[in-house]
């Protein structure tokens, strides 16, 4: 299977540097989350990988080859870039048939991906009648058309309803489990954490992190646990005896910082404290991401020189 290789990649638009000396590899068999604030250079990097934009310096390719040299690119890479890519006056099915024709992909495969993305009932309707979520599904259908080794999706959850978001998580997991290379961009940490095994984080065009999801959480997130109990005094005593610092909130729940769900659960059980709720506090993950990118986001908010 093919990996995505980005080497010393730089792209300037006039005086603005959208991608700044970026180097990373996206290997097959896992879902890589491509994370960064809006304007961090994620979409630009994807366009450079697809050979749509020319790099100012460096290179981006697939298994060491530039995109333009691929004989049948749709069978190697499937990409979702832009929900507006389908012409409103064409039907969803015809939109896919036009793409399929370039690679002699039969109509049977077009109907398959329509089925897979849940668009079969709307296949013969004009794209202008589609909701944003349906256009997003059509874009994903186009990406899957050539049964590609590499799947690259730019903000695929945009406009999807909750059911669609669950669907895409399952899809991404399946694609990675089949051994494909999966790169999915997002500007939301909690969304990415739900599907990614690995993180590549950009800020202002620079690489801020390239690390397994688990390591990112362990290294940057100070764990915290949210607990509710019917016996506050017993909980407070038990936590204090084991050296945990707990804060009681007005609505009755406690936050134990620096602890994990596993620790507090065992502790409460051993001490016989009745628990009504025990959850990991996810807010801190988002905070870790914000801390990482804050400086770079602030900088991009400054007015650019002409």
């Amino acid at each position, binding site marked *: 299977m093919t990996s995505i290789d980005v080497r010393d990649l730089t792209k300037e638009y006039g005086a603005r540097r959208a991608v700044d000396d970026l180097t990373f590899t996206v290997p097959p068999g896992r879902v890589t989350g491509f994370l960064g604030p809006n304007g961090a250079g994620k979409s630009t990097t994807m366009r450079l990988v697809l050979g749509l934009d020319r790099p100012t310096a460096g290179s981006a390719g697939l298994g060491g080859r530039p995109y333009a040299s691929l004989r049948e690119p749709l069978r190697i890479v499937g990409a979702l870039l832009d929900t507006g*890519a*389908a012409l409103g006056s064409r039907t969803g099915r015809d939109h896919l048939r036009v793409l399929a024709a370039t*690679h002699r992909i039969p109509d049977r495969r077009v109907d398959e991906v329509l089925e897979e993305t849940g668009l079969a009932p709307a296949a013969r309707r004009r794209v202008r009648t589609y909701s944003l979520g349906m256009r997003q599904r059509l874009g994903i259908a186009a990406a899957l058309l050539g049964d590609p080794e590499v799947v690259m999706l730019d903000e695929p959850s945009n406009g999807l309803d909750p059911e669609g978001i669950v669907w895409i998580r399952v899809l991404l997991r399946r694609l990675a489990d089949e051994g494909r290379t999966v790169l999915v961009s997002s500007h939301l940490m909690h969304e990415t954490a739900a599907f990614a095994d690995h993180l590549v984080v950009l800020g202002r065009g620079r690489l801020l992190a390239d690390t397994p999801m688990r390591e990112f959480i362990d290294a940057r997130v100070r764990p915290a646990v949210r607990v509710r109990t019917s016996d506050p005094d017993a909980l407070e005593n038990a936590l204090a005896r084991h050296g945990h610092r707990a804060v009681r909130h007005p609505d009755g729940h406690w936050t134990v910082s620096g602890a994990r769900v596993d620790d507090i659960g065992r502790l409460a059980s051993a001490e016989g404290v009745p628990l009504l709720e025990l959850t990991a506090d996810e807010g801190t993950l988002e905070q870790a991401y914000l801390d990482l990118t804050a400086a770079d986001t602030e900088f991009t908010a400054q007015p650019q020189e002409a």
Partner: protein
Amino acid sequence: MPFTPVFRSEWLKIRTVRPLLATLFVLFTVTTAFSALASLDPGDPGADPLFTALSGTALGQVAAVTFGALAVSAEYREGAAARLSLTAVPRRGLWFAAKAAAIAAVVLVVALVTMPAALVAGLAGLGDAADGLTTADQVRGVVGGAVHLTLMALFAAGLAMLLRSGTATLSVLIPLILIVSFVAGDAFGAVADFMPDRAGQTVLRAEPDGTLGPWTGLAVSGCWTAAALLAGAWRLRRQDA
């Protein structure tokens, strides 16, 4: 990448968009109807009978350039259709060549149906006034006119690729065809004969009276078209999609 599947994809793009098909229908209707109307009342008795019989071609050109411009600008109108097309066909020269070939094939076929229909309508209107026309003249007018309409569609396609906009392309070409050539044609004489739309129309005259002959006129239009296509290809290959 082979050419044939890319050509088929571009042909499918044209076939699956109704407004594009509508411009082709307009091309047929307008050319035939205006040839018939103009021939019923030719005005000047010394007018070239072949040119009068096929005079709807002047308006048919408007439909041809509209078709050529829209077929290209559909890639740039909503979102970034061109980007998706280029991920499927990353060889940009090949992609544009296939698109131009599909546009040319479609317009040529429609024009080869339109021009004989216009001629029949025009000759019926002219009656005795058309007696002097030889079969060779008529065949040349019909085939040459069809080639001319095809060249005009490709001229617009090249310009639309250069400007990446159908609106911009048509706001240059439609005034050029409808106003500049008609109005300025007489004022600037020989120079106006070399305009892309006027030069090619020389092929519609039984007896060309200007500097250009029927085939040299068509060749001049061909040069304009080649220049426009090359300019469009240059921007496509050089710039980010």
